[in-house]
């Protein structure tokens, strides 16, 4: 305090108001999640006041067959939706970037429509669509999840396309020409030069698609059959009766799962690569 040195213009971290602002933002973002996690260990059925530490609700959640089934369903849907969204989204982005064709602007606009259209409308649309085409609902697992998966791909792939498109803008076309000049076919040039350049955006796009699919409620609610239930829908039905720590425990597991996944992706790709993708 007595030897204060001047604060340089970019030394934000040394300013008190800046530190408090960051602290407040963090609190705003994470306080609800942290409370949720803490109360998953609460030894109280009503889960309103803290009664003591216990792990029994984790046990209960993991022994709740329908909850586990919903979780497995959600992860399966997210897995397939991510893979297929990645393929379709990347192809769409590359097509829009590389080729000139009539009504390109229209195609581009239409493609990002699922991002803009309110989810509830999409949900209703899918409900009507699957009813009209008489989509079978009595297929064996995992085919009984196909309707939900298709719906998820519809709103996930535009996000992948968007991220990949942004990354493509920084691609030096001469690199692809160089590969061809050295004897590469169209496919080899794509595989050896373009794809490695797109890798960070593919990881980012996959993460985006996976999390979007995993926590989607509205569209899933409208497209799930009588026997297919996903995690968010299951939690919703559980909460309708009472908010027990069991819901907290299940949610905590999901949070840890997604955070771990993101962490692995970042680790694998490098944080820089991900941020470069945007």
């Amino acid at each position, binding site marked *: 305090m007595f030897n204060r040195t001047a604060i340089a213009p970019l030394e934000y971290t040394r300013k008190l108001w800046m530190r408090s602002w960051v602290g407040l933002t963090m609190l705003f973002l994470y306080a609800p999640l942290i409370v949720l996690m803490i109360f998953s260990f609460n030894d109280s059925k009503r889960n309103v006041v803290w009664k003591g530490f216990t792990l029994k609700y984790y046990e209960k959640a993991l022994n709740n067959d329908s909850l586990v089934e919903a979780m497995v369903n959600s992860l399966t849907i997210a897995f397939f939706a991510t893979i297929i969204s990645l393929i379709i989204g990347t192809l769409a982005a590359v097509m829009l970037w590389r080729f000139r064709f009539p009504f390109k602007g229209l195609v581009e606009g239409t493609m990002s429509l699922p991002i803009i259209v309110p989810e509830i409308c999409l949900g209703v649309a899918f409900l009507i669509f699957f009813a009209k085409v008489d989509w079978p609902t009595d297929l064996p697992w995992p085919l009984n999840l196909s309707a939900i998966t298709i719906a998820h791909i519809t709103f996930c792939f535009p996000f992948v396309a968007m991220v990949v498109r942004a990354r493509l803008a920084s691609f*030096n076309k*001469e*690199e692809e*020409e*160089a*590969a*061809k*000049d*050295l*004897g*590469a*076919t169209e496919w*080899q040039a794509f595989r*050896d*030069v373009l794809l*490695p*350049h797109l890798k960070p955006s593919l990881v980012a796009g996959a993460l985006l698609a996976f999390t979007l699919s995993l926590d989607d409620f509205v569209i899933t609610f409208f497209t799930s059959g009588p026997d297919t239930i996903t995690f968010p829908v299951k939690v919703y039905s559980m909460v309708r009766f009472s908010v027990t720590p069991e819901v907290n425990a299940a949610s905590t597991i999901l949070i840890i799962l997604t955070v771990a996944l993101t962490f692995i992706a970042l680790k694998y790709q490098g944080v820089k690569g991900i941020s470069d993708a945007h």
Partner: protein
Amino acid sequence: MTETKQPIIQIRNVSKRFGKVTAVDNVSLDIRAGEFFVLLGPSGCGKTTLLRMIAGFELPTEGQILIDGQDMSLVPPNKRPVNMVFQSYAVFPHMNVTDNVGYGLRISGVPKNEIRDRVAEALELVKLGGFEDRMPDQMSGGQRQRVALARSLVMRPKVLLLDEPLSALDAKLRAQMQFELADLQDKVGITFVTVTHDQDEALSMASRVAVINKGEVAQLAPPSDLYEYPANRFVADFVGSVNIFEGTLTLDEPDKAAVDCPGLGKVYLNHGVTGPHGANVWIALRPEKIYLHVPGKGKAVRAAAQDAPDGHNLARGTIKGMSYLGDITLYEIQLEGGQIIRVSRPNLSRHDQEDFTWDDKVSMHWRADSPVVLLS
């Protein structure tokens, strides 16, 4: 490099149009095996388009390109016996030097140990030994260019195409690379075709230069011919610095000619020009071929201008501008008719630049073999 050899590249009546824009307009030229050929021109003249057509990245709208006698019309870039060094170098950023250089061999299925040997050899050639495991982002621009060079040379192409190879390098490195490229070409014996807008580059490296203007070949000649015997005003002006004066041809005999230039005076040449008498022509005079004198100390003038009749190849003016460039000093002199002529003078001794200053009255002369008469 004998004339009897079949040219390695034959460009026959090639035109390229992008919509309404004609980038290359009915160009025909032959590139001989083993030569260092330069396409020189201002930006947007179509020289890069021509190079990309040889590589196969653009298809001619009209005409035909033959490489080693074979029509390339239907041959895609990856099947052509040429390799290109791109302006951005286009080194693959996610591969290390070895993988970059070995890429072409790898995808054409060359055995591993042969790849290793050839990559090592190519890296040695471009003086990148010891850089095998470096990633491109750990290298300087000049080093990345060497990677691009090695990556192309390792394929042993019949022709190496270079798109503005030196434009991204700083002045010192550029001068060094000019020598190295010429040296390299000599060593590997591959035909080099380079595109550049830099006349110094063209003059210093090329065995022959095609000057391109608005999609057409303005002149095709060895560098010294291009400079000393430009074919038209565009070439004279684009290659080096020049003074151009319009005049009328008043005398034209096999061993002498004279042009009356209203701005400059009477110009005498010790050779014929075979132009129609009384024709409108242009005189091109290089700044370094003009001698500068202080009037009054005229003995030198008369002595030096002896090869022309009295009153020819002499001019008077006032110094209006000077720029001292170290090795030479450049003067802008206003002639008595009002036009500006540029004269350069080597600083042969340390105080030569002090001989003249602004507003000095000076006289100039030039030898009878210095001016070039241009008919177009």
